[in-house]
């Protein structure tokens, strides 16, 4: 029998746009890059529950409370789909969580900012989830099969998040002057951190080039950021809000918005653990995991007991 060249097989699958599946041979670096990206994505969903969880008890109406609860529940689900996809790469759930708890794995820098007012729920849904969707739509075509399939499911669920956020902003923007001011203030605080969500500029991103080559990512940070600005600015202007960027201007010849440079120093600071809420977010998650231990133990004890009774 002829010898199969695993490397050639992998490359030719990629070139035919076929998914790489868990049992396929893959370069060790490809496996690692996927573990890094999928787990970081999963952690972002899980940590992302915290800024919004803060507002569930203070939502201004029962309708808003139900919606926010459903949204936070979705984020837990998205985290689990992704942990599940990540495990197919041969890493255990414990190890994945351990990497988060010890700070070895990162999560999106955006969730290290505080949610100060109810309008922040609008800004997060509209801007943060809007930026996330921009990424996630692309990732439905990522080369690793279980990741791509998880993203398809997530995208189906995600668009309600963005709409509910924009709806909050619309309501506030046409409310009293104080409410409109609240919406504007939230937009001012979330705009730049949202643009940072796409990651550093392409020329400085250490992972982008390789990720695009492996088709883990299909588009670069700068491409996605530009598209997000193009789509979002008219949405904000439509409801009478302004953007905190003097350089923001439609460029007719490029058919794109020109916009200013985010503060990359702040970005580096936040991803290296020094954002306004880094310590609080992580310790909340670690505490929840520790305090949930008795539940996991009880489930195990109950399952063992049932097995004994059945035997």
């Amino acid at each position, binding site marked *: 029998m002829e010898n199969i060249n695993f490397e050639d097989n992998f490359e030719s699958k990629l070139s035919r746009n076929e998914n790489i599946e868990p*049992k396929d041979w893959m370069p060790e670096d490809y496996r690692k890059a996927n573990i890094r990206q999928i787990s970081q994505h999963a952690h972002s969903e899980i940590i992302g529950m915290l800024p919004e969880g803060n507002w569930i008890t203070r939502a201004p109406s029962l309708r808003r409370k139900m919606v926010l609860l459903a949204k936070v529940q979705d984020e837990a689900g998205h985290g689990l789909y992704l942990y*599940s996809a990540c495990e197919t790469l041969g890493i255990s759930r414990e190890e994945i969580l351990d990497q988060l708890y010890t700070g070895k794995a990162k999560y999106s820098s955006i969730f290290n900012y505080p949610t100060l007012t109810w309008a922040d729920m609008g800004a997060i849904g509209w801007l943060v989830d809007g930026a996330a969707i921009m990424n996630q739509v692309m990732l439905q075509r990522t080369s690793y099969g279980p990741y791509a399939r998880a993203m398809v499911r997530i995208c189906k669920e995600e668009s309600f998040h963005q709409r509910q956020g924009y709806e909050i902003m619309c309501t506030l923007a046409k409310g009293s002057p104080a409410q409109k001011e609240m919406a504007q203030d939230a937009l001012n605080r979330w705009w730049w951190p949202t643009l940072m969500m796409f990651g550093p500029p392409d020329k400085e991103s250490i992972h982008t080039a390789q990720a695009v080559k492996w088709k883990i990512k299909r588009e670069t940070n700068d491409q996605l950021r530009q598209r997000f600005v193009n789509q979002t600015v008219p949405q904000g202007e439509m409801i009478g809000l302004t953007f905190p960027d003097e350089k923001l201007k439609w460029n007719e010849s490029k058919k794109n918005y020109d916009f200013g440079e985010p503060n990359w120093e702040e970005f580096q600071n936040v991803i290296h653990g020094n954002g306004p809420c880094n310590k609080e977010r992580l310790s909340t998650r670690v505490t929840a995991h520790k305090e949930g231990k008795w539940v996991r133990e009880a489930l195990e004890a109950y399952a063992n007991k049932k097995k004994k009774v059945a035997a």
Partner: protein
Amino acid sequence: MSDQGIVWEVFVQKKPGQPFVHCGNVHAHDAELALQNARDLYARRNEGTALWVVPAKYIVASSPEDVGPFFDPANEKIYRHPTFYTVPEGISHM
């Protein structure tokens, strides 16, 4: 051993009569909770009407490198296909 139980693969049936399709996995200590977790995670929005959960360790899979010989469709055995046979002119519904 994990304190979150073992991995169960989850299959969902969209409508009665349709095949079950793999949709992901869950962790659980027993079948009952695996089913419950699968419902919570994969069937919140009319995704289906029935679920299977199977301990992942019981799934036996073919290897990707088998793809050639294992799935050889034996294309030379053209007599397996209905188009191999001729039917007299004027015969219908066959």
